[in-house]
């Protein structure tokens, strides 16, 4: 039981965004996808979530996602998009409930409030979603996604959180909070795939890292093996050094040092 993406190819017109990328993610682990802008990170997640037309195969818990109707997919995996616009003035709690409609927690009315509490926004339940700040909106969406796959393991099968830059508009404390939620979901038996921009958080929380560059996979493995001077410098096309303090007395703040 795992999530396999095999030889994924995606084109935007004549531009090839992904040139045959494979990825395997295991339940119990946080799998991160990193890479420079335009490397195909979000495109790869788009294929895995069946949001984009793609060539290749994606197997979710052993079944090709093309063979699964939307509601069965929704019961097995939840997707957090990069940005969410909401058309009508739903309240925060109503938005979280939208996730519940298709999930298998549908018969548990307490789940949405628990999910909101999990992201620290239980007291916002009755606010209108449109009135939230960007960071709050992103956490509400995470709560919605959590509510959809509330139990990390259901019927002996792992369920999956697919997160597209889940911490992009959050402050450092909430970045840690969200990554902690993802890690706990994995530790409880679920699977997590996250597209990440922040290499430090990736190093801290990912169990496996895929590095993409120019639509191809440059490296895949444990953070220690993949986040190296050589691989990162090639991927990001600039000279990078891992675990090296800055040359002068400029302060630097790493999430590693935070006590969450």
């Amino acid at each position, binding site marked *: 039981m795992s999530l396999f993406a095999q030889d994924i190819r995606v084109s935007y017109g004549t531009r090839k965004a992904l040139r045959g990328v494979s990825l395997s993610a295991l339940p119990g682990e946080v799998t991160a996808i990193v890479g420079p802008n335009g490397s195909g990170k979000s495109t790869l997640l788009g294929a895995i979530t069946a*949001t984009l037309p793609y060539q290749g195969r994606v197997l979710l818990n052993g079944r090709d996602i093309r063979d699964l109707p939307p509601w069965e997919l929704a*019961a097995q995996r939840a997707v957090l998009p990069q940005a969410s616009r909401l058309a009508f003035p739903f309240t925060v709690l109503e938005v979280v409930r939208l996730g519940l409609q298709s999930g298998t927690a549908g018969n548990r009315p307490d789940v949405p409030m628990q999910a909101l509490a999990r992201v620290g926004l239980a007291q916002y339940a009755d606010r209108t979603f449109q009135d939230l700040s960007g960071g709050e909106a992103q956490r509400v969406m995470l709560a919605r996604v959590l509510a959809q796959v509330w139990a990390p393991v259901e019927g002996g099968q792992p369920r999956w959180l697919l997160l597209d830059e889940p911490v992009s508009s959050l402050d450092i404390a909430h970045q840690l909070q969200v990554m902690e939620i993802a890690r706990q979901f994995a530790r409880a038996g679920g699977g997590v795939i996250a597209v990440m921009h922040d290499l430090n958080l990736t190093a801290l929380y990912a169990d496996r890292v895929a590095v993409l560059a120019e639509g191809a996979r440059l490296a895949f493995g444990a953070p220690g093996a993949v986040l190296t001077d050589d691989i990162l410098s090639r991927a990001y096309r600039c000279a990078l050094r891992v675990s090296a303090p800055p040359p002068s007395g400029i302060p630097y703040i790493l999430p590693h040092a935070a006590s969450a």
Partner: protein
Amino acid sequence: MTAIPDTATLPRDRLSRARSLHWVLAGGLALACIASLQIGATDVTLFAMLAKLAQGEPLSHMERVVLFDIRLPRLAMGVLVGAALAVSGAAMQGLFRNPLADPGIVGVGAGAGLGAILAIVLGTLLPVWMIDRIGNQMVPVAAFLGGWGSTILLYRVSTRQGQTSVATMLLAGIALGALAGALSGILVYIADDQQLRDLTFWGLGSLAGASWAKVLSAGPLILLSIGGALMLGRGLNGLALGEATAAHIGIHVQRLKSVAILAVAGATGAAVAVSGGIGFIGIVVPHLLRLASGPDHRTLLLNSALLGATLLILADVIARVVIAPAELPIGIVTAVLGAPVFLWILLRRRGLVEP
């Protein structure tokens, strides 16, 4: 920070409020129906007739005609048309994710208008035996074909490889509307005076032409379409998050779009065909309900049907008594009542009027 507030301290759940609103609105509709049967230009009243029936007295011929041939079909048509317009409005707004969308966006209005104008202006050119056979039904049939046809055309134009682009549909709708407007303009030019007045009256809408034949021909399609639309609540809620996210939470987005467009084309096409152009119901009704009980489409669609039917019936009662024995086109009444309400809502939202 992670403490869960006691659910009892939360303001009352909007969903349960919206559900109890079903009953309030159904009651309102029942009252409106009684008013519609009670009030009219003649002094026939429902209560007087019920009293007669209770005492076993026969009804006069006049009473039977007024009640069964005039007011009842008119009431039935009002309920059908009002519900069709309001539900179509709510469904279109959900589909286009825009509270100002209305069925006109998918070309129903322009197409139906073109059909009606064609029938009114060119209908007289048909051979006499054809006019004799289909004369009365020509305008409604042509309006329906025009409205339905243009919507299906738009749908086909904006669907590629099984994916309907809502943005393409908007743009193509504008183009098609302009084309239909131009063709209508040509026909208006060659129309004579009487036909022009007919066109004006058609555009203002009326339930005056109600008959059992019209109710029976438009009713099944309208009911089927409304029924289809009422099942879209969950899907339209999901669509509020965008198409991709709607799919991620398990909604068959393409099927949702197809059903929504077919339902709107059917309901609005049939409604416009039998009653002409009646504005504002499709926009004002869902908007009022969203303010009252939130945007949840699972309750919004049914509440829209109930409130739309109620308002149209009341507007019709006004239309037929204010200048009796003549009557106003109902589109005038809905606009006169709807436009100020709508402006008030907009001003209130901008904080220009104290709530």
